[in-house]
């Protein structure tokens, strides 16, 4: 069953009198528990699409449904509630909160978003930071960590609420090859353990090689969808 469906999605950006179409008539479906990547050159619309799936932005036309919810209908507050409950984010620049320790960064969504009791919180956070291999650094602040360690914290933070979906925008862009490979393995492992759907926006071939479905975007259009077996599902809107 599709966790996400996009139907004829368009997104325009206006800069003064100029309107730029970032996405044009994009349609696709993503199954729950899958490992999916959107690829394409810079400016092809990958990040825009991830923002729409993540309820951070609204399509100009068309419809996106995530976990059965039409995200266009969510207002600011309900959008935040929906994201807190269903979606985890991993950013290219890690985006950790600098005044919080590793433990507190991972704990943050449980405290500030979900209001989980301290006992359950501690158990869940410790499980995850051990799982991603940063338990020894739990009392360190982000500026005391390496890039790979920061991204591990970001992965743990994205997964701590056990979301249905994790959106990762260029998660390996700032990492060396070895660290990037470890992070990809880690995310795949977490998908296998928790059944979380991972969607990447990337042009990193290491991720592209690891995912099960690759959607290719060019100039805001979805031009190709290919699964890991190399089977093309057909060209779209070329």
């Amino acid at each position, binding site marked *: 069953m599709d966790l996400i469906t996009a139907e004829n999605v368009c997104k325009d950006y206006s800069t003064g009198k100029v309107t730029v179409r970032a996405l044009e008539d994009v349609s696709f479906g993503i199954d729950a528990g899958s490992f999916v990547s959107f690829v394409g050159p810079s400016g092809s619309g990958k990040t825009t699409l991830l*923002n729409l799936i993540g309820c951070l932005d609204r399509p100009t036309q068309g419809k996106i449904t995530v976990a059965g919810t039409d995200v266009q209908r969510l207002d600011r507050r309900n959008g*935040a509630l929906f*994201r807190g409950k269903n*979606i985890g*984010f991993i*950013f290219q620049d890690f985006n950790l909160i600098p005044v919080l320790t590793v433990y507190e960064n991972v704990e*943050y969504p449980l405290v*500030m*978003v979900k209001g989980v009791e301290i006992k359950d919180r501690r158990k869940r956070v410790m499980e995850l930071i051990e799982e991603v291999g940063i338990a020894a650094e739990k009392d360190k602040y982000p500026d005391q960590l390496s890039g790979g360690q920061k991204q591990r914290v970001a992965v743990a933070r994205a997964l701590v609420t056990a979301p249905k979906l994790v959106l990762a925008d260029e998660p390996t862009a700032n990492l060396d090859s070895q660290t990037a490979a470890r992070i990809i393995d880690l995310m795949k492992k977490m998908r296998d353990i928790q059944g979380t759907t991972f969607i990447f926006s990337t042009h990193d071939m290491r991720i592209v090689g690891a995912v099960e479905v690759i959607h290719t975007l060019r100039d805001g259009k979805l031009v190709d969808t290919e699964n890991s077996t190399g089977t093309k599902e057909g060209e779209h809107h070329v």
Partner: protein
Amino acid sequence: MFKLVKIAIRNLFRYRRRTLLTMSLITIGVAFVLVFVSVTASFKSMMVGEITDSMLGHIQIHKKGYVASIDNLPLNLNLKPGQLQKVENALAGIPKIEAYSPRLKFGGVFSNFVDSTNVRLNAVDPEKEMATVPLLASRIINGKKTIEPGEILVPELLARGMKVEVGDIAVVVATNEDGSVNGYQFTVGGIVSSVTGPGGRDGYIHIEDGRQILRLDEPEVSEVAIRLEKLAALDDVEARLQETLGRETNPSGKPVFEIHTWKKLTPFFNVVRMIDIMTFFIKLMLIAIVLISVMNVMIMAVYERTREIGTIAAIGTLPGRILSLFVFEGLSLGILGAVSGTVLGSLAIVVLNASKVRFSFGRAQGLILNAGIDPIDVLTIGLIVIAVAVLAGFRPAFRASRLEPVEALRHV
């Protein structure tokens, strides 16, 4: 809530130098206002004390119309015995009154058999007068600290000008209400200094002597001066007197009495008001300092942390929580500034008192500044600072809570 406060405080000290600079500004502002309020309050209370405890009393009761022509000391507007009795009955029913003194006031001519000059005479019961204006005794710079029948306390400047000394014989000539003139011989019992500096012409005699000079058939008085146990009860006692005596009317339906507090009887009240206005403007300056400095810090914080706001919003932090996070930062800044300012201000007041600063007011020389501050003032100033800090932080906090996550995440 605890986590929210913890994050807010950590965020504040993330930009340590800026926060400490802003906090110092608030601290110095609060300390300065506390010192200013305590010094002016001390000066005010000494000034008011000098005036009320030396001469005026806290409240005066006259026959209606007396104060309007007080410079003429009109004898036809004296309180008759029946009216004085009513006043005394009313005063007996008010527990906050410490003492009162009926006074008979009139103008006369003072002569030392060589020269003569005008004098204003206060004929008083010495015990009641000393209880009502306890600083009167300290104003007697030569002679006995009381007023015996047959003796007169001569104003200092008049005594100096006419070369009168304690023990000399003098004559007072006065005209009574019917126009007949009477003279009375006194021994100079003492020299009395003026409250408001040189130029005072108020002398004192015993009330029985006053009645004899004016040939009064019955014991009438010009005014009743009242001293309260605490000056803070002034408005309350005045209101109660207005309720009782203020409603007394004569057969033609017009009020019999008029009741005035010291504020209406001396121009020094305007000085007191000026001090209050200055204090008000100093407080306004403090508000402006807190408002601008906290707002500046918060606007910078929101601008610099826009991307971070985008991150926490994307994670699912509700707009209200983001608002609270920034409001708590303003609140924390206000609390820290108010507390440290109060500590610094209190220390400055202690140092000021220990250094025994002296000043003069009127004839009173070498008054020692006794700066003290009402805990309610401390609390009010603290609360104002905290409230203004929250208010200053609210606008940037609101802006932070309304940021679109996608826009905020794009911020560089």
